[in-house]
């Protein structure tokens, strides 16, 4: 131990280390050690790239009509064939990535912000507030999220924006409940009590003590939620309540394709495969993340 008198010598006389650049690649490395997760991450990255560069990558304008090529099977000119009014399926599929991505980000944003907020508030305040909010969440949870989303779209009117909104709102209860559960364990921890004994403000405690410790749960469930969001929006579009034609959205394409299932199998197959592949990889990634953040769930 330094002598106490020495401890008060001018601080300038000594070098205070600067904060190291605390970029942590540990988590990423761990994720990469899961083979499945690695491929899924690569695939999703590819999807994002396709979405961003859609105008360059797509062979045609997605809404361009080829009157001389209606319901064409896959060929050299149209790699994935054309639909009943002569639009190129591949181009529509590529532009569909954009819609799918923006839908998931938008819906995710709503769920993430509102769910985290409600969950944390419920856990932190507790008592009556917790009871009232959580009972409302319970009522909403009792309905399948797609039914809830249907109801919301029915009220707001069918459009892609409303579908995103509906999917986002419908997933808040589940998310809030998860965050509340995670936050409750933190609330009873020693460091929150220590914070209170120090006299920290509520917002500080929530931001600095709760948030860093729920990030693991947050990341895992947001990832898993992306899959649900994509699926639900596609479902809403499929039944005509989401993206409206001629928007090239995968659910809408699937819905249009189902009428020609016997004559033109490619119309429904490729959008279906695309949805499946993306949701699959998102879910696999989510599972791997769960293992990374919670070593106990391994096995």
């Amino acid at each position, binding site marked *: 131990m330094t002598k106490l008198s020495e401890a008060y010598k001018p601080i300038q006389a000594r070098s205070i*280390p600067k*904060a190291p650049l605390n970029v942590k690649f540990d988590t990423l490395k761990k994720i990469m050690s899961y083979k499945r997760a690695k491929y899924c991450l690569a695939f999703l990255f590819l999807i994002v790239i396709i979405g961003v560069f859609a105008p360059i990558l797509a062979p045609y304008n997605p809404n361009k009509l080829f009157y001389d090529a209606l319901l064409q099977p896959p060929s050299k000119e149209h790699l994935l064939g054309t639909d009943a009014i002569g639009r190129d399926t591949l181009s529509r599929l590529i532009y569909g990535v954009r819609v799918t991505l923006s839908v998931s980000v938008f819906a995710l944003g709503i769920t993430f912000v509102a769910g985290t907020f409600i969950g944390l508030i419920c856990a932190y305040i507790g008592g009556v507030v917790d009871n009232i909010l959580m009972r409302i969440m319970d009522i909403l949870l009792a309905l399948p999220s797609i039914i809830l989303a249907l109801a919301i779209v029915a009220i707001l009117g069918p459009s892609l924006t409303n579908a995103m909104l509906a999917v986002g709102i419908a997933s808040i209860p589940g998310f809030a409940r998860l965050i509340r559960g995670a936050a409750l364990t933190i609330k009873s921890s020693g460091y929150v009590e*220590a914070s209170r004994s120090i*006299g920290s403000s509520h917002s500080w405690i929530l931001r600095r*003590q709760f948030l860093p410790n729920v990030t693991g749960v947050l990341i895992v469930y947001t990832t898993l939620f992306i899959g649900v969001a994509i699926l639900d929006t596609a479902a809403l579009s499929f039944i005509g309540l989401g993206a409206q034609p001629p928007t090239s959205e995968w659910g809408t394409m699937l819905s249009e394709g189902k009428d020609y299932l016997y004559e033109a199998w490619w119309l429904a197959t490729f959008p279906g495969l695309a949805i499946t592949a993306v949701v699959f990889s998102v879910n696999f990634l989510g599972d791997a993340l769960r293992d990374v953040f919670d070593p106990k769930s391994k096995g």
Partner: protein
Amino acid sequence: MTTSLLQVRDLEKRFRAQKSFFQAKQYVHAVNGVSLELNDKETIGIVGESGCGKSTTGRCLLRLIEPTKGEILFQGRDITKLSKVEMNKLRKEIQMVFQDPMESMNPKLTIREILSEPLIAHKIPKAQHVELIVKTLDLVGLSEKHLFRYPHEFSGGQRQRIGIARAIILRPKIVVLDEPVSALDVSVQSQILNLLQDLQEELGLSYIFISHDLGVVQHIVHRIGVMYLGEMVEIGEKEKIFDKPLHPYTQALISAIPKSDPDEVKERIILTGELPSPSNPPSGCKFHPRCMYATDTCRSAKPEMREVEGRKVACHLYN
């Protein structure tokens, strides 16, 4: 004696123990009429077995648990009547060190962030933060090279040093130490105890030292209070109590301290029976079912605190 820094009068904490909505209201008296005084630069030890309410007492002093009744006078001001905002300001003067340093520190924050928390909470200008943190780290025997490490990178003793640093960084008047060394190895315990004593001298701190280990308490405290089932049974100068414990419970506790000299003849008082449930405490003197001197008076009447041989004791034996 001049006016004390901290005066606790008849502190009481009841917890509601209601098993179902239809049941009659039941209460557990965790702390029942505890009074104590703490002077400047003094250490008072609160000892007792687990469940006797010593930690609850400590937490009540900081209003981490709201006391049900009683007064806590800090420099003459009753802190139980302060608003939450005023109380938060006053927390600068009364800080706490917790038992398990791993538990009491957020594993996701660096030492620098952990130690800035009190500074941010009490609005110390940001320019002074680093200097204060490094000085405080020096005081507890750590250095600036530890600033950006995480709690799990430290040993138990170092971690408790950080816990102490966090408590003293605001230069409080009183530090409540809740079993600060019971999670540590014996060799590390003595280092931490020495550190606490050095800090007391250097910074003029007053300690409330909560522990179940009389051997540890003997080292560091000036006065000692023995608690049993939420009540103070004996309180006074350390020397007097260790030389001649009066309350039968204190006698039993002191006889249980291991002696270093194997030849020393010692009489070990073995208490029989279990610690009664605080939700259904015995009548009269709460200690009577386990006391070897118990009489009929003990079973019916509650003993009052009395001044006996230079200390206060609550026992019918000394009427």
